[in-house]
């Protein structure tokens, strides 16, 4: 096991190294002069020079990369061009909010999706299956921003049930927090529920046709026992992959919800950074998202190995 994790860590480091090169090169890829591109044309020579040296544009690219990487590893991504603060401070302020939303959505969508998927598979061909499958198919096609806009219109503007924007931590004002988070969380979770439901259903049906399910039936086991003990554990193996993907995309998946509901999380920060071409800020966000994604990948692999005894490590 330890060996396996070590190997995966090694591979992940290589991948992150490649990502870091890409992220770093963003500055060089900017059309025209990077300083002007980031700050706009109307700046003093002084400001220009300061930025020019801060970005290290006077040094060769390899030297520049390693000095950037060295700083980045200790959390120093430079100064945000649009907010004139240290990038790390700006990001640190926003990250917990995005994490709060995505983790909650993840926790809700996984069991719900699996439950609905199993229900649909067990009642295959019935009305219930039809309704669940249609729901899952439609919901996995709906753009998240459109669901958010619809919810906003329906629950805030027409029914006046929920506030349309803002974010409060639950320990600050619990009632307010709940009413503010209920819609964004639902919008975030709905896609996950739909895709996990689809995957669970299809892999359940795949498993149900396997020889070992026939063996279980020939033992005279009850339907319930066959599903819970023999089918589900096998069927969940491909679902883990999907969960890993969702976990990995957690940090970079809520920009639409954050934009629509005016929540100042990291993803909306990234959007505004991109609009402003604030490269240091973008670099920090993308790198952070990639690190979280890669760590999620490793966790997925470990869970995979733990669940499936066929994988020998």
């Amino acid at each position: 096991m330890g060996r396996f994790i070590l190997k995966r860590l090694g591979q992940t480091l290589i991948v992150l190294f490649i990502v870091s090169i890409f992220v770093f090169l963003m500055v060089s890829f900017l059309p025209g002069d990077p300083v002007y591109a980031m700050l706009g044309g109307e700046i003093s020579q002084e400001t220009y020079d300061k930025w020019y040296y801060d970005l290290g544009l006077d040094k060769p690219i390899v030297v520049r990369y390693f000095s950037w990487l060295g700083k980045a590893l200790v959390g120093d991504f430079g100064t945000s061009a649009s907010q004139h603060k240290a990038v790390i401070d700006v990001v640190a302020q926003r990250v917990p909010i995005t994490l709060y939303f995505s983790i909650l959505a993840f926790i809700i969508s996984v069991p719900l999706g699996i439950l609905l998927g199993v229900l649909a598979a067990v009642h295959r061909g019935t009305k219930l299956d039809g309704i669940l499958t249609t729901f899952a198919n439609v919901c996995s096609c709906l753009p998240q921003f459109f669901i958010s806009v619809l919810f906003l219109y329906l629950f805030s503007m027409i029914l006046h049930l929920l506030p349309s924007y803002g974010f409060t931590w639950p320990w600050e004002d619990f009632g307010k927090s709940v009413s503010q988070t209920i819609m964004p969380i639902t919008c975030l979770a709905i896609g996950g529920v739909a895709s996990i439901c689809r995957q669970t259903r299809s892999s359940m049906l795949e498993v149900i046709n396997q020889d070992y399910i026939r063996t279980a039936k020939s033992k005279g086991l009850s339907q319930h026992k066959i599903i819970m003990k023999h089918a589900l554990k096998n069927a969940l193996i491909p679902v883990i992959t999907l969960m890993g993907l969702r976990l990995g995309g957690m940090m970079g998946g809520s920009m639409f919800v954050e934009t629509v509901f005016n929540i100042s999380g990291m993803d909306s920060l990234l959007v505004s950074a991109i609009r402003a071409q604030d490269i240091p800020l973008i670099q920090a966000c993308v790198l952070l998202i990639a690190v979280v994604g890669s760590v999620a990948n490793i966790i997925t692999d470990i869970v995979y190995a733990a669940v499936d005894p066929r994988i020998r490590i």
Partner: protein
Amino acid sequence: MNHLLEVKDLVTCFHTDDGDVTAVDRVSLHIDRGEIIGLVGESGSGKSVTMMSIQQLISPPGYVKSGEVYLDGVEGNLLTYKADSEKMRSIRGGRISMIFQEPMTSLNPVLTIGYQIQENILQHTDLDPEAAKKKAIEMLKMVKIPDAEQRYNDYPQQFSGGMRQRIMIAIALSANPDLLIADEATTALDVTTQAQILEMIRSIAKKTNTAVIIVTHNLGIVARFAERIYVMYSGRVMETSKTWNIFKKSGHPYTKALLRAIPRLDDPKDRVLIPIDGLPPSPADRPTYCPFYKRCEYRKDSCKENAMPDLQEIGPDHYSACLLSQNEMQAKEIELRNRPQKAAPVKNIRDENVLEVEGVKKYFPILKGIMRRHVGDVKAIEDISYTLKKGETLGIVGESGCGKTTMARCVMRVYKPEAGIIRFNGIDIAGMKDKELAPYRSKIAMIFQDPFSSLDPRQTAGSIVEESLIINHSCKTEKERQEKVDRLFRLVGLDPSLKNRVPHEFSGGQRQRLGIARALSSDPEIIVCDEPISALDVSIQAQIINLLEEIQAKLGVSYIFIAHDLAVVKHISDRVLVMYLGHIVEIADCDELYKHPFHPYTEALLQAVPEADPDVEKTKPAVALEGEVPSIINRPAGCPFHNRCKHCMERCTKEVPQLTEFDSGHQVACFLFDKE
């Protein structure tokens, strides 16, 4: 006395888009306590479906349409209970249990084997979990799983195929059922393992008075183990009687035809197999008259005019579903036998070696860690030497994992051997690079085992056969090429107008013919046949064997014929080479080897093969060879066979015996025959 199980007029259908298809058609059978019966038939004959129907294990789109099933001690027709009802579930696994064909997929991969046995015990007995565990371990010991206690918590994939099938048996017998159904339970296993497992089933069944139904396509197995036999064809029972009657006084034309189509170990060398022409009808367009009519040698016009006959008594306890009376049949039989028979094709073996293999070794590296460190080798084959004459067939036999295929692939130069010489017409091709090899590639062709995966599903039949003609530029014009393709099609008995079909539009036998046409397209001198008929049905096998023999007589090619079916190898080969764990243990002329096997392994192997003759079977020892082939990674030191050998001496554990000539042409690697 009541029968233990009685099935009356069972009909099972499968619902399809084009209406219902009847898979089992009015099948009736019965079995008594402690009896062992056989249910034989080719694939698609409905034998497994019958067994599944009895236990209501048929899942949609299949369903049992009508029929009655009575089990001693259960009130009324079993089929009237719901499939999921308490009653039915207590019968499944409790009173009737089943072992399935695929040992690799029939056990749940994510549950321990201990759990899977214990579960069945808990379901059907009042034992508490602790006692159930004890019983489960007892069961594991009974099916001879070594270190049962330690292995209780292992997962199925940590066991070999034979071991998994033993575990399946342990599950099936754990709740002391009255009836055990073994559905092709040993088909995927080696002959020696097959003999061990069936023998074990028999001895346990006799001890516990359990009835057993052996479902198989292998006539030899039922000849050895069954007391009574049902022969099925196209969803119907064609004939049923005591085992001896079926083989010695067979009454139905189908049974007779089957027995004529299979090669036997005690065949004379020049026996011509008489294949059953055509294919079984597909269940969707099965005629109302006798389904065997089209392929039957005895058919009369009245067979087609009347509905499929029911079973008629033709002798004491002997029933056959044929319209012909015994007298009519005998008259026809005489007429048929007096017809001029096709003579065996004449071989022309020249005294010239087309292939000489000397000291070939093939190792596969074992790599470990991130840096892919080389930590050792799997020594797949060691020191292989033999020769092949022009026009000769060399049979290669041995259990799975003995290196047959690796050896063939070295000759084909799919693998590059680590050491040794492979001389093709005097030129060493063992060390050649891909470029130098090109002219020789076309001279050594191959026929594969699986007719489904060996033909590119996206190419048409024509382009599969013509490919090597294009690559080797062996035809000048398109027309010439097409003519050659047509010729090849006719040579293997396919209509050239089928050229534009894709492989899945052919039947298994036709696909194998295509594979042969492809192998012949480059005018090879050697054809390596890797289990070319083992994926085919019995009645089709004879067609392919005959075709291979005709082609050899016509073209004078040499065959290296790999098979695990020793009767087939005997039928087709001139000389036979026996392999065990990467070593050659014996080479001899075919007749000589089968009559006087020297090596203890060859002897055991020959005894393990079940033959379609109950009289011969009685004379054989129950289990010829104990244990399983060890993994090639832990090949024992000294003679690779010493830990399973009855005659093992001290010397065998230390030295590897060399292949030495004993008689003229008879080579054996065993210290028993050391001249000193």
